[in-house]
Structures are given as C-alpha cells and as structure tokens.
C-alpha cells in the first residue's frame, strides 16, 4: 500500500511504498518485464516530474505531455538499462532535456502566449491552494506571484533548471550537478549567481521595501 511522504527539505510529496525496493531494483524489474515495477516508479515520480516540468514550461498540458514522454523513454530504454547513476538523475536529465527542447522549439509561440495568459494567470492549480484561500487571494498577491514566476523564467536556462531542481526536488548537489552535466563546484557557482539575480529582482517584494510590488 502506497503512502505519501513529505520531504522536509523541499516540501515535495513523494509516494513511498513501505515495501519499496530501490529505484534501481525497480528498474531492473521493469527490464525483466515486470510491469508492476514500472507502475511503482510511475506512482513515485509522476507528481514531482510533472511539477518540475510545469515550473519549467508554465503550462500543465505541455508539462504532462513532456512527463509522459520522459516515462516513455525510460520504458523504451528498459532493455538497455544498466544500473549506474541514480534513477532520479536519469529521469530528471531526460525531463530537463525535453523541457529545454520544448522551450526552444516554442519560444516564439510562448512569447505570444505570455502576453495574454499562462496557466498561473488563470488561477491556482489543482492542489496547492485551497478554495478559501483562492477566494481571498488579492490582486496584489497574484501580481507578486507573477513577478516571482517572471523572475525565475528570466534566468538563463541552466540557472533556471538548477534553481528548480535545487528548490523543489529532494536532490543533493552532486545529483543536480550530474543532471546538468557539470561539476559540483560549478553547480554551486551557478546556483549562487542564480539566487543573487533573484535576490536583486525580487528585492522590491521584500516586506521592508517601500511600496512593495512597485519597484520592478
């Protein structure tokens, strides 16, 4: 029976089965033709992967398509699977490449969309904000959320991926570095620059900033 576990570090909900074996063992089960193993990997990483991709592309339908494509690629590659790096490294590396390709392919189209509306402009998603909070949400809060989205989106691609993996996924520096194909020290430098940029861009939103929300 599956249960939800909240990661203390990142607040991400992971489906954890008490009887679960490691991801590598599950993947070896998939390789051997055990579909139940694939179902368990899917149950465990479905939500984190869709959320990561959603934060990358800011569109739920696209995020789900890309997440499905990532799982499909894992499934198709099952015969050639050799236990090496962690499963999450592999999965998020696939997802990162898919997201970056999608963004590059549709950059012009997304630019048009961003003028009009993206998913977050239409209101909160399915799970995070409860209906009562949604009703009380003010225009100022929406504007604040949009500024934060925009600040993250304006980061260079690699910095953006690094921040999203670092902030929202329960991954260590070494694993994020492997996903991005760089050294751990390079990752820390990348993250430092990214958060520094965010600090400057989001400074007007700080509580002690005069006229919060007007500075950008």
């Amino acid at each position, binding site marked *: 029976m599956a249960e939800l576990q909240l990661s203390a*570090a990142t607040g991400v909900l992971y489906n954890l089965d008490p009887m679960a074996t490691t991801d590598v063992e599950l993947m070896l089960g998939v390789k051997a033709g055990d579909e139940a193993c694939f179902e368990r990997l899917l149950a465990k990483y479905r939500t984190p992967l869709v959320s990561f991709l*959603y934060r990358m592309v800011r569109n739920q339908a696209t995020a789900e398509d890309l997440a499905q494509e990532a799982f499909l690629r894992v499934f198709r590659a099952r015969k050639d699977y050799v236990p090496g790096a962690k499963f999450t490294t592999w999965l998020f590396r696939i997802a990162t490449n898919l997201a970056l390709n999608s963004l590059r392919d549709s950059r012009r189209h997304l630019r048009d969309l961003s003028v009009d509306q993206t998913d977050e402009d239409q209101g909160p998603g399915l799970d995070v904000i409860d209906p009562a909070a949604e009703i009380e949400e003010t225009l100022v809060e929406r504007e604040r959320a949009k500024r934060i989205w925009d600040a993250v989106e304006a980061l260079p691609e690699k910095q953006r991926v690094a921040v999203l993996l670092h*902030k929202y996924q329960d991954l260590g520096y070494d694993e994020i570095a492997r996903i991005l194909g760089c050294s751990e020290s390079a990752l820390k430098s990348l993250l*430092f620059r990214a*958060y520094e940029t965010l600090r400057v861009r989001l400074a007007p939103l700080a509580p002690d900033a005069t006229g919060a929300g007007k500075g950008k």
Partner: protein
Amino acid sequence: MDCERIEAALLAVVDGRAAKQERERVEGHVAACGACARRMEEMQGVWSDLDSLRAVEPSPSFDARLRARMAEQPARPRFFEWMTGNMRLVAVVAALVAVAVWISLRPTIQRPAPSSAQAQQDFAVVKNLPVLENYDVVANFDVLSDLPGAEDTSTQPQSLE
C-alpha cells in the same frame, strides 16, 4: 571564516543541505556580522518567495494517456525519430547520395564516332584474330625477320614451341 567564504556557504544553510559543523560555523559568523546577517536574511527571503511557484498534480487521466501512448509506441524509435537523433549520419548519407546522383547525371564525354575507314580496319583486325591463335603461323612468321633491326633477337624467344 571570512565574509566571502560565508557568502558561498549561506545557500547550503538556507536550503538545509549544510552539514551540522558548517551550519554552526555560518551561524556563529552571522551572529557577529551584520552584513552577512542581512545577506542571509535576503537569501531566506528569496527562498520563501519561491514557495509561491505552485506545484500541480497530474490530471486524473495522466496514467491512462501514458498507457495509451505506451501501447501505440513501437519498442524501437520510429524511423523519423531515429533520423532526428542521428542527424550527422543522415547528413553524411544524404551527401553521398547527392554525389552519386550528380555523377550519374553529369554529361558524359562525347567521343567522335569512328570514321568508316577506321571501322573497316577494326573489322579486319577482328576478322583475322583466328590467325593469331594459330601458334604455328606466328612462330614461322618470317616476314618479321625482314624488318629493320630484326637481327637483334637475342632477347626474343626463338620459337613459341
């Protein structure tokens, strides 16, 4: 620990990934350094701001759509997917095909048609070919000895017999 090193370690403290010893070092410095304390506060502010980037749950049909895609997808990449993944090889093959087509289509060198006299001469040679196959005739071909310079035959075989 100077401020520069603290700055590099602040993030690991804010994100909770720092080891206990490192965290204690940073917190000790921050307690005594106003600039680093402010820096840490700002970093924590950014970290909190990012909480507002909402997560999403996959839609209820996610698994069903994935299974449908798994059912329709071939075990191996489709031809065009394979091609897009091997663009260099495809480019090389395309270049080879283009060269082959160019070679086959390029205008061939037109040689002049042989004159009628030349044709008759060629025909005579062909007609007399059986004679050359008769080794007795060739071996006793005395006419050759009448040719100028025919005396020096030391390096030539005397007979084909």
